[in-house]
């Protein structure tokens, strides 16, 4: 019997991972949830071109973050989930990495409603992740994920580094958040300096700094 979450029926879910053994594990979990797994063996080509052939019959997606095995996919799971978000398809990102900051830009993190660490994988968490993703697609956010237009201040620009430290208004002034310079608006990347004030959409209620996303940066 298909799984119904928040009035949405999930009959089939695509399973995306570059290792067939991992896909098999996710498939078993989906089966136990009552969802038919759809084994995605490769994703070669442009995502928008292959979308219909790979995902059009699916009601949800479970994907790994790194899809680096040769010939599997030319993009990573963050990009895939961002596309799912645009297509209004619930999706959960499963990863082994405790720190996803280098692989998942903070702007993309806004479109990734649920990240499930490998060490915490179980049916309850998977179900919870799908539920959260469905909720966000319909505009319902948990306090930790709700985006707010927020002022952020660059407080430290370490020498010869590819990142800056910022503080987010509405959060503790002692909490310095690392943001890669390349993720800042293009026009300020070359002139970052302490004291620079910017505005962006930020989930200021996030539990930890690592979970913060920054999106829709406003021109300075």
């Amino acid at each position, binding site marked *: 019997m298909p799984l119904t979450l928040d009035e949405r029926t999930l009959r089939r879910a695509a399973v995306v991972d570059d290792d067939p053994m*991992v896909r098999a594990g996710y498939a078993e979990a989906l089966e136990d949830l009552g969802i038919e797994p759809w084994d995605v063996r490769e994703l070669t080509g442009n995502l928008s071109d292959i979308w219909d052939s790979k995902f059009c019959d699916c009601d949800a997606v479970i994907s790994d973050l790194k899809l680096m095995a040769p010939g599997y996919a030319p993009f990573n799971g963050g990009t895939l989930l961002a596309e799912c978000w645009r297509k209004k398809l619930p999706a959960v990102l499963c990863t082994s990495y405790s720190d996803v900051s280098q692989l998942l830009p903070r702007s993309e993190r806004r479109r990734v409603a649920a990240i499930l660490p490998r060490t915490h994988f179980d049916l309850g968490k998977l179900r919870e992740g799908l539920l959260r993703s469905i909720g966000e697609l319909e505009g319902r956010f948990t306090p930790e994920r709700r985006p707010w237009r927020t002022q952020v201040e660059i407080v430290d620009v370490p020498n*010869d580094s590819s990142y800056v430290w910022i503080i987010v208004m509405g959060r503790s002034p002692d909490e310095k958040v690392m943001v890669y310079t390349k993720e800042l608006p293009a026009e300020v990347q070359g*002139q970052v300096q302490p004291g620079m004030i910017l505005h962006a959409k930020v989930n200021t209620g996030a539990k930890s700094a690592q979970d913060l996303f920054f999106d829709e940066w406003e021109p300075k």
Partner: protein
Amino acid sequence: MTTARIRFAPDILRRLGEELNPHPAVGIIELVKNSYDADARKCTVTLTDVDQSGGQVEISDNGDGMTVEQIEQGWLVLGHSQKEKSRRTRLGRIPAGSKGLGRLAALRLGRFAHLETRPRSDRAAAHQLLIDWKLFDKASLIDDVDLAIDVHSRKKGTSNGTTIRLDKLRDRIGRMEVKRLARAMLLLADPFGENSEGFQPTLIAPEFSDLEALVERRYFDHASYHLVAVLSDKGEATAQLYDSRGEILFSATHNDLFPKEVDRVVECPSVEFEFWTFILNGITFATLPVTIPEVKAWLSEFGGVHIYQNGLRVAPYGDPGHDWLSLNLSRSRDPEERPSTNNSIGRVRIEDAEELLIQKTDRSGFIESHAFHEIRRFGKAALDWMQDRRMELAEKKRAKARTIAPKRTSKTKQRLDETIEAAPPTLRKQLREAAEKYDKSRDKEVDELKKEVQLYRTLSTAGITAATFAHESTGNPLKAITLAVSTIERRARDRFAAEYEKKIMPAVDRIKSSLESLSVLGTVTLSLLNHEKRRIAKVDVHGVVRSVVNTFQPFLTDRNVTIELQLTHGAPWIYGSEAAVESIVTNLVNNSLVALEKTPANERVIRVSTSVMDDVMRLSVCDSGSGIRDIRVADIWLPGRTTRNDGTGLGLTIVKDTVLDLGGKVGVSESSELGGAEVFVEVRIMGV
């Protein structure tokens, strides 16, 4: 039917002119550009009493001047560019053109703007116009104010040209603003090139003379590398890299510059990009007739990559803070052989008669069109190529140094032997013995160093291999096992109900616990190799201690080791790399873990403590192990000395070397409060 017109209140003049121009210099530069368009060769800006309000600015040129019609239909018309595409001036210049908004801003700097112009087309005439802005302030509409153009005969011997005088300045022009203007004027007509246009703007101000003297120093010949990249009008790029003597080191074709986008042309006007990089160190400058501070001062004023469109500079590219080719960002990501704005200068010359690149109305650069992005792509590709070639050179130098060093030593030895042979016979024997002793101790030192280098290489290889496996294992195999165990657990629980807990769960739990330990190995390895940690910056020592302990925690739990932190109040910090501090703490904790291997499981304790006395911090790690055994205490720091068959004997050596690099010292106590040994390091801190 009634006809009507849109009309403008005088306030629009203030909004359009002043609010679109952030600094007086921007507007004055627009007037200087007008002189360029009028084919002037000289343009002089004179500032009188501008350090207070009420002063005067005069801009005077020897260009073609204007007729009455040109004043009426061009100079006084705002928002309409006088530039016709592809039109060139009498001297063949492509007009800079403007919508007149910058000029408006400049003219409104004072209460009065006075124009006198002597047209080339009528050598007997001179025209004058006075604008009193107060009349506009009183009027309801702009059109309500009439301006009189006074036509009169020119004084005999007066040359063609235009003089604009701005009287009774509303605000003072401070020193910073004068300096900004001086710099903008100096850079306007490419002072670094041949100045083929022959245009010389001059500012009568001391700030200008200082900068002019600086700009004229032209240290280009002392650059270590000179990159010349050219983009043809067909969008095909080529590049050459020259050394300090002007010899070509490398040449590149289009496909060399764009190896990932071969055969894709660059879609923008033709461009010539020159870039000079200086290696600001004592060795490079030892033979040069200039000093590092001189070149630094020059680069500080003029460094960065400036853009010249049709002969005139387009601000703000190359200004401080406008690193449009992301030199500093690229260097921070990949520092080796990369230039920064502090040690380089560059110029991008764009021939753009078709005006594919359009400047923003507020003169804050080009509209970020496709053509502009393409120029940036070309510039970055050339810089990337230059870095690769410099890396190639650096690698060759390193290889050469390794071959040359033994030969040089052998020659020196031969010379020494000859000198000894030439010494008086009474001294010869003593000298020979002393030289032999020296040789032996030196050979011993070299042997030790070689062994150490080999050990470090072996360890590096082990590290790289561990990292590769860590990447792999943290990824798929561990994930596959976790998911498989999860399925077994779930389905077995469902299938066997109460029997599951008795018969299957203990085995499943053991697998899960082992998985957690395996995960730690991968996480620790990858965490240690994070390249960001090797940057020199402020390092919070307590933060690093906590991070290391946190990373090790599952591993420590698995081995029944309790770790105690007794950290002093505050957050002592040093200036160094996080990797260095991490390396110290990790190796000391590892060392204690080894010492605890034979200690009963319920007695395994490691304590990490810190204390600060004056500006020295002592970090110590002790344990409840059996202390130092089977090795002399003094020998524990020697490389390769270990009491374990499978140990590397490098942990404490690395600690000692790292601490010495930080200017600190190491020490050891054979016994501690916990019973085992205590190893401590003392380093000078910068703050708490």
